[in-house]
């Protein structure tokens, strides 16, 4: 389970973030003592850090700058500061992403998984059972037979694969598609999923995507 450290001084927000991360299969570590955040950041050995800019006694940007001298653990800045200047500064100090409050929880989770994937240096080829998933070619290969996925189908399959054996809601799939400039509607999503099912059936996996009524889909 990936460990995610939360450095956020607003209690309500911190607690809700912990719940959100826990529900999404991460292990949250919440910082509650702001006297030696820098040391805690180094000691925690987290896989990813969510860092606020306005903290008691200390500035998140300074923390990040300091932290980057020793570690390349991914850091996402979560902040209510909404100027481009803050974003550019944070990115230049080595932040991996910059998200402003209030954030869409689904987007936040998508960004977290994208940053984690980038840092884990997942290769161009992933495995789903005995199917080879090539994101570069946008194809699924099993026992020598290949199915080419469209961009939309690949986005859907990728999200299901990242959360294999978990329920992914239609809302999450929709957000992921829109985030990739595919402004599809409800019908188009259903069509894409049934086409994806068709292609998996061609590969001999007709039961791969399971529908959970009123909840979403699970890739098994």
């Amino acid at each position, binding site marked *: 389970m990936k460990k995610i450290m939360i450095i956020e001084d607003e209690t*309500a*927000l911190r607690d*809700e973030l912990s*719940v959100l991360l826990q529900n999404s299969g991460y292990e949250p570590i919440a910082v509650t003592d702001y006297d030696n955040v820098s040391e805690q950041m180094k000691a925690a050995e987290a896989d990813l850090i969510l860092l606020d800019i306005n903290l008691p006694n200390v500035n998140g940007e300074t923390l990040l700058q300091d932290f980057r001298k020793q570690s390349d653990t991914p850091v996402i800045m979560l902040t*209510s500061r*909404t100027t481009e200047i803050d974003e550019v500064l944070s990115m230049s100090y080595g932040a991996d992403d910059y998200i402003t*409050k209030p954030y869409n929880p689904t987007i936040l989770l998508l960004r977290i998984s994208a940053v984690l994937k980038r840092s884990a240096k997942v290769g161009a080829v992933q495995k789903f059972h005995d199917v080879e998933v090539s994101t570069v070619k946008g194809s699924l290969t099993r026992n020598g037979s290949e199915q080419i996925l469209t961009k939309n189908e690949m986005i859907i399959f990728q999200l299901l694969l990242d959360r294999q054996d978990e329920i992914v809601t239609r809302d999450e799939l929709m957000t992921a598609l829109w*985030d990739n*400039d595919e402004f599809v509607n*409800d019908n188009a999503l259903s069509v894409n999923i049934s086409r994806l099912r068709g292609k998996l059936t061609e590969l001999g996996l007709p039961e791969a995507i399971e529908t959970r009524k009123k909840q979403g889909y699970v890739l098994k």
Partner: protein
Amino acid sequence: MKLTDYLKDRLTAYLIYGTSWVLVLIFMAAFRISFQAIIIVSLILLLAIIFAELWGYFRKKGYYDKLLHCLDELDKKYLLSEMTDNPDFLDGRILYEVMQETNKSMCEHIAEYRRENKEFREYIELWVHEIKLPVASVQLMCHNDNNAKYSEQLKRIDDYIENVLYYARSGNAEKDYIIKPVSLKRTFADIAVKNREELQERNITLQTDNLDIDVMTDGKWLGFILGQLMGNSMKYEASEISVTAEDFPDKTILHFRDNGCGIPESDLPYIFDKTFTGENGRTHKKSTGMGLHIVKKLCDKLGHGVAAKSIQGEYTEIIITFGKHDLHEVTKL
């Protein structure tokens, strides 16, 4: 300064001279001074007065003409006192002193307002940051409790907060934005995702074309501008929003078009005016007349052109023009 005006202004002095000359004549006649002597004395006095008056006239004319000319040429009239010299005649010096003094006092007064304005804006910024925390918390609570009921209202609250923030920013004299290459595609996708629920609820389709272009702007400000335009399209019954960009060597033009109720021709010149709501404002309750006004102010500050085209009942199109500079090439390197 006209000579006739000057002479008119000096009329009292001439009357005094005239009266005393008449008195002098009477006395000289009474003392039986010769006629020639009287003529000579009168001529000397007359010439002396004429020369003295001409000297006085030209001395003042030189100074005041320059002053008026300066005033005429200046586009910021209040800078006049910085542009004038201290003259060598008494009333001019008094005027000069007065001008310097009032100018100084006005500068202090303006500085005071500017400081108050700045403090107020900083407070607004701070307040916005603070109010966003509970909004963010409630939004996460909704998600964690699987309760989407409040999300829409939260989104509205957040939009209104953003409005205040950008209104404060748009009126600010200081530069608190940075211009750098920003992807139109990425910015538009972010705004689309933010508004996805409402767009889908209203069955609005999005069409984009040729947005894979970087423009020189402030990403956050552009995001706000696009959000406002999208909000308007949703408010005014659009069922399709089409966003396209055209790239030219010297500029990029963004067309934000919807097929909503459109704007009456008579209202079109005023849509960027503050608190203008027009006919659509009367038929649609939520109109404040601030959205497009802020958009216009932000575009002006960023140096983008913004214009609108519309046919009532058919479409509304907002056109934003982004300039390109050599700077673009520099930042790309």
